[in-house]
């Protein structure tokens, strides 16, 4: 049994007051807070070890290189990659996806080919493929979605065919919380010779991930959604595919030998990491992984399951005043509650909840086609992490009830 109140003490920001109320932070799908251990790791690097990495022979450079490469090893172990060479540092999941679209897609997607996505992709796993398809004369197709926000994979046979070169799917939807059953889709993609990309931005922070068990060819995620710093992300690629890929950026750090005429590329993974990397934030992400591993990903997953079950029950109390999107089955969703009230616009909802100290996100959550498909222009979204408590869910529900009542009765009550 996790001691959530002990965990909360590691997060300085959670003791902040917002509008004279204790902060209730429910915007974790956008970014998570950082424990003291991660903040300390950043400060320690800059205060005691700051230097550029690789090739330096002085002590600080060797220390920085060791710390930076140790962080890569932590990432590799965390997702059970076969080798650290498969782990490429990026700025975020978006950059990771763009590298795949450019370095792999430009050379492997051709006229008439098909790329299969889900309708619940974040814009970052939609637009790079739209652009690639437009340039190459390929087609982007979508797996249909059922009314409860899960993928309808009954017709996978016809969706994945010999023209399909890539299937790229989000593991957990940031907008409606669906946990996609990706293994079936991955197996089908492979059986037809297509590659499989999994966007793990919303799954890695919340559940154990084993890229070898998932058998995905590409896996992407961001550090800041898993208690790490902003500006650091990860691209995992299976070695046999990575060996065939050309670098997207060229310049310093990524070369073996350079003449005035040409250059040869460095070994993996540095071939894909041109320029001075984001050393401190990679080390910070390593500290976040230590922190998460110490709590235990299985423990985090189980705790969040209890939050999901509790939250789903509590939302029922709101009846028709609030429509909750996404699967009703707690086993098929992450701790993301995306909702809409016919009486209160999401931006008003978000603003009034902020007055109560409750931080939720409102808008299309970078999934504009999905949200439009739900029949609304925007939703409000409460997304939880391991430091959120049942009491905070109660406060959210009370806040929602008060806000809806205020607008429903013509602002005669108080908020």
């Amino acid at each position, binding site marked *: 049994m996790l001691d959530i109140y002990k965990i909360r003490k590691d997060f300085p920001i959670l003791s902040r007051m917002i*509008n004279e109320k204790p902060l209730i932070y429910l915007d974790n799908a956008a970014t998570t807070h950082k424990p003291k251990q991660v903040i300390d790791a950043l400060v320690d690097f800059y205060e005691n070890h700051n230097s550029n990495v690789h090739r330096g022979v002085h002590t600080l450079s060797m220390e920085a290189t060791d710390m930076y490469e140790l962080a890569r090893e932590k990432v590799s172990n965390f997702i059970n990659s076969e080798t650290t060479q498969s782990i490429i540092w990026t700025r975020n999941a978006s950059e990771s996806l763009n590298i795949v679209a450019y370095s792999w897609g430009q050379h492997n997607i051709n006229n008439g080919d098909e790329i299969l996505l889900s309708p619940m992709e974040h814009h970052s796993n939609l637009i790079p493929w739209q652009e690639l398809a437009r340039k190459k004369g390929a087609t982007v197709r979508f797996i249909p979605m059922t009314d409860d926000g899960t993928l309808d994979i009954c017709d996978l046979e016809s969706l994945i065919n010999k023209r399909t070169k890539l299937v790229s799917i989000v593991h957990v939807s940031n907008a409606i919380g669906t946990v996609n059953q990706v293994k079936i889709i991955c197996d089908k993609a492979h059986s037809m010779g297509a590659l499989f990309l999994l966007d793990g931005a919303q799954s890695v922070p919340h559940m154990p991930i084993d890229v070898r068990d998932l058998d995905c060819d590409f896996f992407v995620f961001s550090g800041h959604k898993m208690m790490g710093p902003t500006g650091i992300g990860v691209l995992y690629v299976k070695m046999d595919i990575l060996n065939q890929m050309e670098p997207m950026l060229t310049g310093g750090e990524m070369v073996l030998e350079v003449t005035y005429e040409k250059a040869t590329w460095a070994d993996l993974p540095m071939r894909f990491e041109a320029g001075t990397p984001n050393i401190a934030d990679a080390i910070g992400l390593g500290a976040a992984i230590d922190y998460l591993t110490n709590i235990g990903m299985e423990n985090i997953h189980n705790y969040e399951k209890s939050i999901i079950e509790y939250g789903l029950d509590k939302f029922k109390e709101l009846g028709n005043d609030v429509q909750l999107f996404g699967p009703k089955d707690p086993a098929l969703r992450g701790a993301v509650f995306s909702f809409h009230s016919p009486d209160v616009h999401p*931006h008003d909802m978000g*603003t*009034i909840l902020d*007055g109560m100290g409750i931080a939720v996100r409102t808008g299309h959550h970078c999934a504009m086609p999905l949200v439009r498909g739900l029949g609304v222009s925007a939703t409000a979204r409460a997304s939880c992490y391991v430091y959120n408590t049942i009491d905070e869910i109660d406060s959210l529900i009370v806040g929602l009830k008060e806000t809806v009542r205020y607008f429903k009765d*013509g602002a005669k009550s108080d908020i």
Partner: protein
Amino acid sequence: MVQNRISDLYRNDAILDHCMNPRNNKLLNDVDFNGDAINPFCGDEIHFSIKLTSIGRISKIGFIGDGCAINQASGSMFSVLVKGFTFNEINECTKLFRQHMQNSEENIMDVGDHDISALFQVRKFPIRIKCVLLACSALENAYQNYIDSI
């Protein structure tokens, strides 16, 4: 009432009245000019339809929109304010209003006790100024359509 928090705007009588009972809240059938504005970042939108008299003054105006309370109140208040205006007067009005909203120090526009003065309080909350100004953008679009037609 001193309003220090954005959520306090929802306690303002004029804003509440206009968002819950928006005036002129339908598009006209017989239209001379339309004006549209969409904020792609938040998905809010406002659309005006305008009918002119023979001497070029607004005889009828309608608006519809989808957005937050501030945004919808702004559409409603503007529809009341500009009735009877010429397009040149609308242009002057939206220019002044925009400058007023974007200047937190000086009072550039004086609307007396017209309901729309309630929106001036949003100046304290820069993040929501765009909600107020979407109606301005839609009227500016209508003005541009008018200019393009002459």
